[in-house]
């Protein structure tokens, strides 16, 4: 029989744990619907104004006195979102291809310096973001490369490749090497084996790695802050800039939309995983 007191304590602990994690998110979501433009902590009434305002659909904003400035900042925010999405798509593609290829090569081929190579692939993940950011900045300046969307993509790829590598490698380690041998034994060339056996078997890992890379790229502030130029800003850097000028209700709306997008991506990932049975 289970102990009722212990059970109640465990339930209470679990609830407290989840409350601790999710309460801040719900606070932000709640505030994003508060119509009070001066003090968001005092509830005035329910409104969608901050959302419609963000998307340029209504003229209500905290910058009532200067509507031109506000419209401009909406355009800036949408531009930042576009930059973020562009960066995330390119980085995800590049780091997924390189990370997967490296994981396969390190698992299947024996060569000199393999152990070192393995360590080097992990290192960017362990390195503090700020060190990586400064290092990249100094590097780009040294080789005379102007900071642009390109430097952001290169910067993100340097560490996201490691994330994809580690996730695919874990999947690779659990794979029976006899699967590839069986494919070769049945007449498939290496390329055919890669296409018909190895990649489908690794698919959950590759998709998981790609989603993670996408989310981290969308989310990264520190490294991007160093390697982005004046022209191209990503959404996190833009929000960081906004916050320095005071926390406005629009930020709650942006945050809520980002939470929504993250939930959708995470759900998509889980759904894709659940479809892959083996």
């Amino acid at each position, binding site marked *: 029989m289970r102990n009722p007191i212990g059970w109640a304590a465990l339930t209470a602990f679990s609830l407290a744990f989840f409350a601790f994690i999710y309460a801040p998110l719900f606070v932000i979501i709640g505030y994003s619907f508060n119509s009070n433009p001066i003090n968001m902590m005092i509830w005035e009434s329910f409104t969608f104004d901050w959302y419609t305002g963000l998307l340029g659909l209504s003229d209500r904003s905290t910058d009532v006195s200067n509507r031109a400035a506000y419209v401009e900042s909406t355009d800036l925010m949408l531009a930042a979102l576009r930059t973020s999405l562009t960066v995330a798509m390119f980085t995800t593609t590049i780091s997924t291809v390189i990370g997967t290829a490296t994981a396969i090569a390190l698992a299947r081929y024996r060569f000199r310096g393999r152990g070192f190579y393995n360590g080097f692939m992990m290192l960017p993940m362990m390195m503090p973001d700020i060190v990586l950011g400064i290092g990249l900045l100094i590097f780009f300046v040294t080789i005379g490369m102007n900071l642009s969307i390109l430097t952001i993509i290169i910067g993100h790829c340097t560490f996201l490749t490691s994330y994809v590598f580690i996730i695919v490698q874990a999947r690779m380690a659990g794979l029976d090497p006899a699967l590839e041998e*069986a494919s070769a034994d049945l007449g498939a060339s290496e390329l055919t084996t890669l296409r018909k056996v190895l990649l*489908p078997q690794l698919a959950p890992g590759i998709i998981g790695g790609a989603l993670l890379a996408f989310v981290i790229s969308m989310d990264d502030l520190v490294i991007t802050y160093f390697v982005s130029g004046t022209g191209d800003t990503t959404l996190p850097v833009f929000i960081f800039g906004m916050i320095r000028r005071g926390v406005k209700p629009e930020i709650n709306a942006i945050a809520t939309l980002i939470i929504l997008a993250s939930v959708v991506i995470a759900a998509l990932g889980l759904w894709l995983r659940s479809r*892959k049975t083996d």
Partner: protein
Amino acid sequence: MTHLLEIRNARRTFITPEGGHLAALDGINLDVGANEFVTLLGPSGCGKTTLLRAISGFETLDSGTMTLGGADLTALPPFRRPVNTVFQSYALFGHMTVARNVGYALEVAGVGKASREAQVAEALEKVGLAGMGARRPSQLSGGQRQRVALARSIIAKPRLLLLDEPLSALDRNLRQQMQLELKTLQHALGIAFIFVTHDQEEALTMSDRIVVMRSGHIEQIGTPREIYRHPKNRFVAEFIGETNLFPVTIDRVDGETALARTAEGVEMHLPSAGRKPGEQVTAILRPADFNLGPTGIPGTVTRAVYLGSDLYLFVQPQAGGPEIRVISRDGAGFDEGAAVHLAHDPARVHVLEAA
């Protein structure tokens, strides 16, 4: 007579983690006929799996030649060799249905869909899995997976099928059933099987010929009967089945039979052909070759194990020396502590030259 597979002087050396050299294949010569069931038998590390992998192409030879139907195999990568393998882990593709697994060789070779489906159905039929094509390997039992692996490996009609301990994961009853089915299938297909196992019972049941291997070389090649009745040396004798070994000295030769004694004084009768008094040899007698009777080697039963139809006895000879293992059909009444006499037919004794 030409053979399907001819292996000449095959050598393969591995470097151990300690930096030493390990000869996994130490000059192997082997011929396999076109419709033969050959078993590679030996303890782990004897090189049997390395030999199998060298034939399938997953292991390269340092030296030696290997031909299949007269064509050189050694330079061909695995996917160009006309042999197929049943892997120990089955290695089924989890992301494919059973039907696609079975039809994989045809799919890769570019065989059209209609022809492929017909051949897949036929192959599944052959292994007793008709109608299971739409399932996933994860939805099958161990025995069924084994059959899928088998169907997948025979669909391309190889001239030689390699089986790497395919039955080791099955329970005893299923294993025995599969042994007989494999033998039947091999006859029906009319192709050669090379079967790797460390289970001597399995080897004796299925094989046309058994290749007994130890540390990279072949100890003996022969039919199950030859290997069992006339082992060439102690290793083969002890590896195949239960054995009693008696190091004896020939006492006197008496027509057809010779009398010999162990150091402790246990008396044995053996065939006299070529024996001289004073000679030291090893006499081999299987447990089932002893009869419990009024005469013979006197001894005491130390342990009696009931095996169903048989009684397995450990008998301590009165004269001393190691216990003798005896299987008796009519062992009723011979409990532990019983005094018995072990008689034997001299013709059943196999003699090894070395003591």
